[in-house]
């Protein structure tokens, strides 16, 4: 498990006036599910395109399974499966024909690709739709078939670019399970996403990329330790009471109150929050408390702290493409 599937050293790419990627370094272990997280325009797609050989880096080196892809981009393509951020199969071919065609691109024999296509159609719940044209598929079905096409040749390394963007919740859940299963079966997965929760659920290690630079790269556990020293409680209240939040800091040293919504207050503290005493104090101040809920720190908190980018803003970047969470 300690062999490196991907080694990236000092890779940079500039497009005329824009420095898309500014000298990044990272490694991905064999069998790892590695998350690459960042907002739109951060350099995620440029990085993935350089890794798969669709874009040439201006500087630096890329090794995939020990093969130098910066000088010989074609040499490692048989080891890679690629699922782009948009479903790019052929609308005029059926699901089955698309899969067998993709298998043929990797030199699979007629018999082998037919058997594998049928296996994948069943595995992805598309068995009955296999004879229908891809152009008539729903977004979720298109996404699933695109992932199936990416693994038709059983690649040891899979690049997934925003796999659940723009699809319904049920399909997104199914796809996440399929990704987890693939990884469990030994496939190294490089996943780019702007869904922080998705990265938190799936990845063992995560890199945050902002403006072409990796600002933090660590295991999920290590990233989460970042927030382990902080405690937060959210109260459902009869009114938001910004005045109450202002008084809170003076009355309760170390606590910081924030009105989240009209009827929600969030209180953060470096020490465990004494909820009972706090509820009593709020109610004595004339605000009724209907619920108090302890918040577990999330990767989103870490992301905001490290990058300074609000997670909501990042997801709104992709709002046009739909949900998927």
């Amino acid at each position, binding site marked *: 498990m300690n062999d490196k599937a991907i080694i990236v050293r000092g890779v940079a790419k500039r497009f005329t006036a824009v420095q898309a990627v500014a000298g990044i370094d990272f490694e991905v272990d064999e069998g790892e599910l590695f998350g690459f997280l960042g907002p739109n325009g951060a350099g995620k797609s440029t990085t993935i395109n350089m890794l798969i*050989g*669709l874009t040439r880096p201006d500087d630096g080196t890329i090794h995939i399974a020990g093969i130098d892809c910066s000088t010989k981009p074609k040499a490692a393509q*048989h080891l890679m499966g690629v699922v782009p951020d948009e479903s*790019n*199969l052929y609308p005029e071919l059926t699901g089955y024909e698309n899969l067998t065609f993709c298998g043929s*691109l990797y*030199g*699979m024999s007629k018999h082998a690709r037919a058997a594998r296509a049928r296996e994948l159609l069943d595995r992805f719940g598309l068995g009955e739709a296999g004879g229908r044209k891809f152009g008539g598929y729903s977004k979720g079905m298109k996404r699933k078939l695109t992932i199936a096409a990416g693994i038709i040749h059983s690649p040891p390394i899979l690049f997934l670019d925003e796999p659940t963007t723009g699809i319904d919740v049920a399909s997104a859940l199914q796809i996440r399970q399929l990704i987890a299963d693939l990884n469990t079966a030994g496939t190294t997965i490089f996943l780019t996403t702007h869904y922080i929760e998705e990265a938190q659920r799936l990845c063992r290690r995560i890199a945050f990329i902002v403006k072409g630079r990796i600002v933090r790269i660590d295991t999920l556990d290590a990233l989460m330790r970042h927030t382990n020293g902080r405690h937060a409680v959210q109260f459902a209240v009869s009114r938001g009471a910004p005045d109450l939040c202002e008084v809170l800091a003076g009355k309760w040293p170390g606590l910081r109150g924030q009105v989240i919504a009209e009827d929600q207050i969030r209180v953060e503290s470096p020490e465990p929050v004494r909820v009972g005493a706090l509820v009593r104090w709020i109610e004595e101040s004339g605000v009724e408390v209907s619920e108090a809920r302890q918040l577990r720190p999330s990767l989103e908190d870490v992301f905001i702290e490290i990058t300074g980018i609000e997670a909501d803003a990042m997801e709104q970047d992709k709002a046009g493409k739909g949900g998927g969470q």
Partner: protein
Amino acid sequence: MKAWIACWNILAKDMRAYYLKPPNISWGLIFPLAWTGMFFVRSGSGLDSVPTLLPGVMAVSVLFGTTSMLAVTVTFEKKGRSFERLLLAPISLELLMLSKTAGAILFGVANAFVPVLLAAFLTDLSGINWLTLIPAVILIAVSSTFIGLLIAVSVAEVFEAQTFSNFFRFPMLFLCGLFFPIAQLPVWLRPLSYALPLTYGTDILHSSIHRPPHLPLTLSFALLAFSCILLFAISLQKIRQNWIS
């Protein structure tokens, strides 16, 4: 990696998805027939003119049959990003593009023989030198396809590819000696004629069917082959520069 499996399936997929569709088959048949009929009626010299017109009509059929298809098989697929899937296949760019253009070449060759079949019913074709005609048709199809490829990889939209194709194709009808000799062109236009590969292909076709060649056949074949290599090399360079930069 068995590259031939990928190459054959790229060709077979394009054939199934694009070339063997009824609109293309009808275009491939109707267009050459219409051209043949038009020039036959216009010449007004009866069946004797068929061998004189045949080389030009064959060349037109190949030219239009090949160049128009690349806008779909390359530019359209690039626009829809399905071309990326091909670029990710572990085969060389040279093999990939040869597979991608093979369909257009075959389609162009087939188009060339539609007027020949028609002419066979109207006149005696026993004097045709097939040994020079068939290689010439193939080389014309290859060079025309690669002109289409160069246009297809130089633009981003399908309509741009079609517009540019017409920009090249229609002047070639008059500049390449298809229906009247280059000697009849103004002197200042002749260098342009000799810069176009179709001029050499048409000269071979004329010499294979009804008259001696204006240029030595070996020179025409060599220049036609050279233009194929040059156009293909420039197209690959464009792809590397624009699509894998």
